[in-house]
C-alpha cells in the first residue's frame, strides 16, 4: 500500500503538476493536430506560402477580396437558402414524429421508436446519401435540385427529431390537462402551451441542422452533380481539384466565421444546446 500512499501524497503536494500530467496529453494533442492546423489555415488565407517548412510570405488580403466576389457570394447565398429549406423541411417532418413519440406513443414502444431514429444517426452521410441514389436513379431524379433537397432533409432529419423529442419528453403532461380544464381545445392548447414550451428544442434542432447544412458537401455533390454549387462543393473543388489553397483557406475562414457568429448569437439568446 505504500506506493499508493506516496502517490496520493504526490497528488496532494503537486496539484498543478498532476493537472498538467492529466490534462496535458489531450490538450497538447489537440493543439498540434487541431488548433495549429487552423492557425496555418488563417495564415494561408493571408497569402502565406509554406511547404515542408520553407516559408515565403507576402501579406495580402486579396484572397478575401476574391472570396467576396459576386460569384462566391452567390454560392454563399445558395448554401444558406438550401440550409434554410432543409431546416424548415426537417422541422415540418420531425415535429409531429417527436410529439407522437414523446406524448402519444404507448410506453412499451417508446424506446424502440427512439432507437429507430437514433440508428441512422450512426451511419455516415456518405452511405445514406448513396442509399438514396438507388431510388433517385430509378425515378430519374438524379442531379436535380429536388433530389438535393430531399437528400438534405433525409440526412439531417435525425438531428432534428432527437432534440425535439428530448424537449417534448420533459413536457409536463398535466400542463396540457390544465389547459383543457381551462377550456382550451386541443389545437389551442398546442398553440398556446406545447409549441411555446418546445421552442428550446426547435432552437437546438435548428442549430444542429442549419449550421452544418450550410457547408454540406456530400449531398449536393452526389445527388446534385455539377448542377448545385454550395460552400462545401466549392471548397472541395478549390482544394482537391484546382489546388487553390489560398482562396480556399479564405473561403473556409469566412465560413467558420459565419458558423461561430451564428452559434454565439444562439448561445446568447437561448443558452445551452439541448441534445
Amino acid at each position, binding site marked *: 500500500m505504500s506506493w*499508493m500512499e506516496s*502517490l*496520493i501524497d504526490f497528488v496532494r503536494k503537486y496539484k*498543478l503538476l*498532476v*493537472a498538467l500530467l*492529466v*490534462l496535458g*496529453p*489531450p*490538450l497538447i*494533442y*489537440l493543439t498540434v*493536430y487541431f488548433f495549429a*492546423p487552423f492557425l496555418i489555415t488563417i495564415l494561408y488565407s493571408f497569402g502565406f506560402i*509554406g*511547404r*515542408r*517548412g520553407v516559408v515565403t510570405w507576402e501579406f495580402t488580403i486579396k484572397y478575401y477580396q476574391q472570396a467576396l466576389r459576386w460569384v462566391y457570394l452567390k454560392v454563399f447565398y445558395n448554401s444558406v437558402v438550401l440550409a434554410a429549406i432543409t431546416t424548415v423541411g426537417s422541422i415540418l417532418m420531425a415535429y*409531429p*414524429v417527436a410529439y407522437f*413519440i414523446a406524448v*402519444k406513443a404507448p410506453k412499451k414502444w417508446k424506446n424502440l*421508436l427512439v*432507437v*429507430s*431514429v*437514433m*440508428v*441512422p444517426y*450512426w*451511419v*455516415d*452521410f*456518405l*452511405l*445514406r446519401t*448513396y*442509399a*438514396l*441514389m*438507388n*431510388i433517385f*436513379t*430509378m425515378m430519374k431524379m438524379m*442531379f436535380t435540385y429536388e433530389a438535393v433537397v430531399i437528400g438534405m432533409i*433525409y440526412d439531417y*432529419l435525425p438531428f432534428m427529431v432527437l432534440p425535439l423529442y428530448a424537449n417534448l419528453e420533459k413536457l409536463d403532461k398535466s400542463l396540457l390537462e390544465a389547459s383543457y380544464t381551462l377550456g382550451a381545445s386541443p389545437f389551442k392548447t398546442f398553440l398556446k402551451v406545447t409549441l411555446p414550451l418546445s421552442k428550446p428544442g426547435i432552437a437546438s434542432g435548428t442549430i444542429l441542422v442549419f*449550421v*452544418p447544412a450550410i*457547408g454540406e*458537401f456530400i449531398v449536393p455533390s452526389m445527388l446534385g*452533380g455539377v448542377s448545385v454549387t454550395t460552400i462545401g462543393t466549392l*471548397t472541395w473543388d478549390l*482544394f*482537391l481539384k484546382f489546388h487553390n*489553397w489560398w482562396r480556399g483557406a479564405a473561403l*473556409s475562414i469566412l465560413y*467558420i466565421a459565419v*458558423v461561430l457568429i451564428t452559434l454565439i448569437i444562439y448561445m446568447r439568446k437561448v443558452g445551452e444546446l439541448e441534445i
Partner: protein
Amino acid sequence: MSMSLRDKLMGLYSAFVYAFLYVPIIIVIIFSFNESRTLGQFTGFSLKWYQVLLEDKVVWVAFYNSLNVAVITTLVSLFLGTLAAYGMVRLDIGGKGAVDSLLYVPIIIPEIAEALSLLLFYKFTGYELGWLTVLLGHIAFDISFVYVVVRARLAGFDRSLEEASLTLGANEVQTFLKVTLPLSMPGIIAAALIAFTLSFDDFIKTAFTTGPGFQTLPLIIWSQSARGGVGPELNALTTVIMAISMTIAYIYAKLTMEKQ
C-alpha cells in the same frame, strides 16, 4: 386508452416519416441481393455480389485499412479523452471553463473546414500523406466526442458515492478503482462505440488527408458512385458497412437505455 382520430393521423404521419428514413436503406439491402444488374427490378435472390466483394482484393485492403484506423483511433482517443474528462470533472484547478470550451471546438467546427486545415498543416510540415495522416486527423476529432460522453457520465453520478467510499476507509486510488471506474464504465464503453463508428465511417476528413495508395471503404464507395454509378456491388458493400454501424448503434442504445 383508445386513440382519437387526430392521434391516429399523427401516428400515420410518423409511420410515413419512419418509412422515409428506412425505405432507402432497405432498398440498398434488397438490391444487394439482386441477381441482375438492372435497378428497380428484382430478378431473383443471389449472393453473387457479396461473392464479388469477397474476391475483390482492393475491398479487402480498404476494409483492413478502415478497421486499422478505427481501432487505433478508438484506443488513443479513449485514453486521451477519458484523461481530459476525469481531469476536468475531478481536479480542483482554475481556468476549467476555458479548457472546456477548447475541448468542445472540434465538435462545433464543420468537418470540411477541419479537413482542409489538416491538409494544409500536413503540406506545411511535410508529412507523407497516408495511413498516419488519416489516423492523426481521426484521433483529433474523436478526443472531443469521448470527452463529452465520459464527462457527462462522470458528472452525472452522485459525488457522495466517492465520498462514501472515503469514509468507509478507501483512499483515493482505491476509491477510483473500486467505485469511480466501474461506475463510469458504461460511459467509457459508449464513448468507445461512438469513436469507432465516427472513424470507421468517416469520409470527408479521410478524403482530404489520405495519400495515394491508402484507401478506406468509404473512399471506395465515393470514387465508384461519384458519377452516379449505382450498382449491386456497391449496394453490397454499403450494406456491409451499414450493418456494422447499425449493430454498434444498437449495442449503444441497449447500453444507454438499460440504465434508465
